[in-house]
């Protein structure tokens, strides 16, 4: 590819991509599980209140929980069946969390959706459909999308960016939907442009996905017009290219200020998967209750890209894929750079689950860490220009509260520092500790 690749100037790195385990595999649908656990809080904000009682009958897509007050997003039944319990189930981080458990009716007919014409709908109706569908940023943070799409008018937003970078190793979720459903994403982009009153949309995709770049370009060209300018921008393969601040800098050259948000520099960023969910919410009026995830790593018998219902337990996914291998030594929800390790498979898929990785001892590095030798590699790797080495040393010395001078609150925990550290120091762990104790 001879065209120039966009990138951000400072820091970053090249962890082994390991995407070839699953990047060529078409998305397959997981058979309906016997039960699903739908967590009441799958988003950034307050948890939902359950709207259903035990033994109630539900149909897939039914509203079963909503946030009455404050920031949040509604949740919907992902299967047709009955409410088995309104209680608690496993949670990837909090061990357990409030949830609604549904028992699937295997005889139920799958729900059918027919597309409608959205182009005449007013902006308020489009936003209402997105809110009613319970859409959150499904790339990771889970911020309610309808809130993100309502920036203050004085911000002067002029650019929409769709994030198709997928810079995390192993994950191929966004890659597959861009290859298989480019039309949905482009349509979603147009809906987003209409809501925001914008013309310009950039879709950033790392250059290691040439088939996705081609598919998205072709579709964007075929459906151009109506005053939209949708461009596909190939990005240099460099982690963390898909981080919001780095992506904005790569594509627009603008730098989001410290403690600032993208709209401070006139940009709104949405994941390509979220754009597709917006398409489904508006055009099909289908709530967000299923999503594509990557199941990969050398610790699973068969890697796959799976379309699963929200609430599907990892145990069901593992048994469908033929179980784990004996070498399995770490299970990660999300990508290997920023995901979190889980101690049990008894946890459900949520709206923000992008993948589940089954890593063997050869893939992880569990060597014990030593003292900092001050090689300075973490300073070079940090895309935010922070000093992870100093933060780590201060935390170890019991002086975590003094670490804001090194920018600890600007850290978004991409993990580049800990990846390159030759002493294998758990710098992200030190930084998380520092964030709890340091003074802003």
């Amino acid at each position, binding site marked *: 590819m001879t065209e120039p690749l966009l990138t951000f100037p400072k820091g970053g*790195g090249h962890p*082994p991509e390991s995407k070839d385990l699953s990047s060529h595999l078409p998305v397959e649908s997981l058979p309906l599980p016997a039960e699903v656990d739908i967590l009441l809080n799958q988003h950034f904000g307050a948890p939902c209140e359950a709207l259903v009682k035990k033994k109630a009958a539900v149909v897939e897509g039914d509203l079963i929980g909503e946030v009455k007050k404050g920031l949040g997003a509604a949740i919907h039944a992902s299967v047709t069946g009955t409410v088995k319990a309104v209680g608690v189930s496993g949670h990837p981080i909090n061990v357990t969390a409030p949830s609604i458990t549904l028992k699937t009716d295997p005889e139920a007919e799958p729900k059918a959706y027919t597309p409608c014409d959205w182009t005449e709908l007013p902006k308020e109706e489009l936003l209402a459909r997105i809110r009613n569908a319970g859409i959150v940023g499904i790339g990771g943070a889970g911020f309610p999308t309808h809130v993100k799409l309502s920036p203050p008018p004085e911000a002067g937003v002029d650019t929409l960016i769709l994030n198709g970078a997928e810079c995390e*190793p192993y994950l191929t979720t966004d890659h597959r939907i861009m290859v298989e459903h480019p039309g949905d994403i482009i349509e979603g982009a147009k809906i987003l442009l209409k809501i925001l009153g914008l013309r310009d949309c950039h879709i950033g995709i790392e250059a290691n996905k040439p088939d996705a770049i081609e598919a998205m370009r072709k579709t964007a060209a075929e459906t151009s017009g109506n005053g939209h300018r949708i461009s596909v921008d190939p990005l240099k393969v460099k982690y963390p290219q898909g981080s919001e601040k780095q992506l904005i800098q790569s594509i627009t050259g603008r*730098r989001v*200020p*410290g*403690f*600032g948000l993208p709209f*401070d520099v006139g940009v709104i960023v949405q994941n390509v998967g979220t754009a597709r969910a917006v398409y489904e919410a508006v055009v099909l009026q289908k709530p967000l209750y299923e999503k594509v995830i990557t199941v990969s790593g050398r610790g699973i018998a068969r890697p796959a890209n799976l379309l699963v219902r929200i609430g599907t337990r990892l*145990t069901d996914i*593992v048994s469908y894929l033929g*179980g*784990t291998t*004996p070498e*399995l030594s*770490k*299970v*990660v929800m999300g990508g*290997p*750079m*920023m*995901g*979190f*390790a*889980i*101690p049990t*498979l008894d946890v459900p898929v949520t709206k923000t689950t992008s993948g589940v*990785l089954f*890593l063997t001892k050869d*893939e*992880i590095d569990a060597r014990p860490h*030593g*003292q*900092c*030798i*001050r*090689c*300075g*590699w973490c*300073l070079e790797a*940090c*895309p*935010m*220009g*922070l*000093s992870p080495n100093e933060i780590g040393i201060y935390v170890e010395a019991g002086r975590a509260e003094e670490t804001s001078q090194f*920018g600890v609150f*600007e850290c978004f*925990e991409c*993990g580049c520092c*800990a*990846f*390159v*550290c*030759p*002493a*294998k120091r*758990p710098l*992200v*762990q030190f930084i998380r500790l520092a964030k709890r104790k340091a003074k802003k």
Partner: protein
Amino acid sequence: MTDTAPALWTVSVSPHVKSGESVEKIMWTVVGCLIPPLILSIFIFGFQTLIITLITVASCVATEAVGQKLLHRPVTIRDGSAVITGMLLAYVIPPGVPYWMPVLGAVMAIYVAKLLLGGIGFNFFNPALIGRAFLVATFPVAMTSGWLAPIRDGSVFNYMGSGVDAVTTATPLFVLKHYGIAGVIEKFGSLSSIYGSFFVGWRPGCIGETSALLILIGGIFLIYKRYITWHTPLSMIVSIAFLTWVFGGETLFTGNPLLAVLSGGVMLGAFFMATDYVTSPSQPAGKIIFGLCIGALTVLIRLKGGYPEGVCYAILLMNPLTPAFEQWFGPKRFAPQKGVSK
């Protein structure tokens, strides 16, 4: 569930993948880069250079092991850092010293200058140079007169058998300081032949510092591996060459920059000592200024100080300024502006 879940998984904090680099890999690579000058030194000065180096390395490793035991710390001699300190210490002492002397230097370097300050990563002076400075201060005669003349014609093996005692001599820098450039030419030959033989390493000097060529090869390999960067070595060498050219002659702008760079410990210091991670800055701007300062101090000591050579003290004087350099030349923040929440 029980079929698929092994008893214990690792649940450590992200990132879950790490680069293949390690402290051990870096250190042992540096050790590898230091071996060619050692082999050449045997051909230049005889087998005692190998013996002195082995004694120094063994003393350093033993001091580290015993010291860490005494201080109730984990023993980390496998990481190779004590081996490097041992090699560097041996390389900056004259080949004619008695064999017990480097043992004392090793104890000083590892136990006092490294372990007592907190171990790897916490020493604020280069341990090997502290070892040398201690020996120079304690045994000034041996440490400034144990120079051997290079063995000519590569006849090291004949020489070993001939029973002829090693000839003590003076280093080029000593001659330069006391007899000027004319004295150097009289003793070591015409300038053009000096450049060649000095570049390869055939000159009196410390054990591992004489061969600019082999040090350069090792240093460039470390730069290629990205274990060190070019900033400090280049700025230090340029600064020594430039300042010697300006101030090193009878009148201004008549000094001999090439001779200055090829003699003494400039090359070894620039590539293997001034680049030590712990005792030098980490950011490019800081590295360049650090190198320039070392060069300036080296020339100052050489021209105005009592010693003919100044690299060792120049680096030692700059080492403790590293934390200040880290503050003055810190990394550039992605977002230095005040944010919206302020």
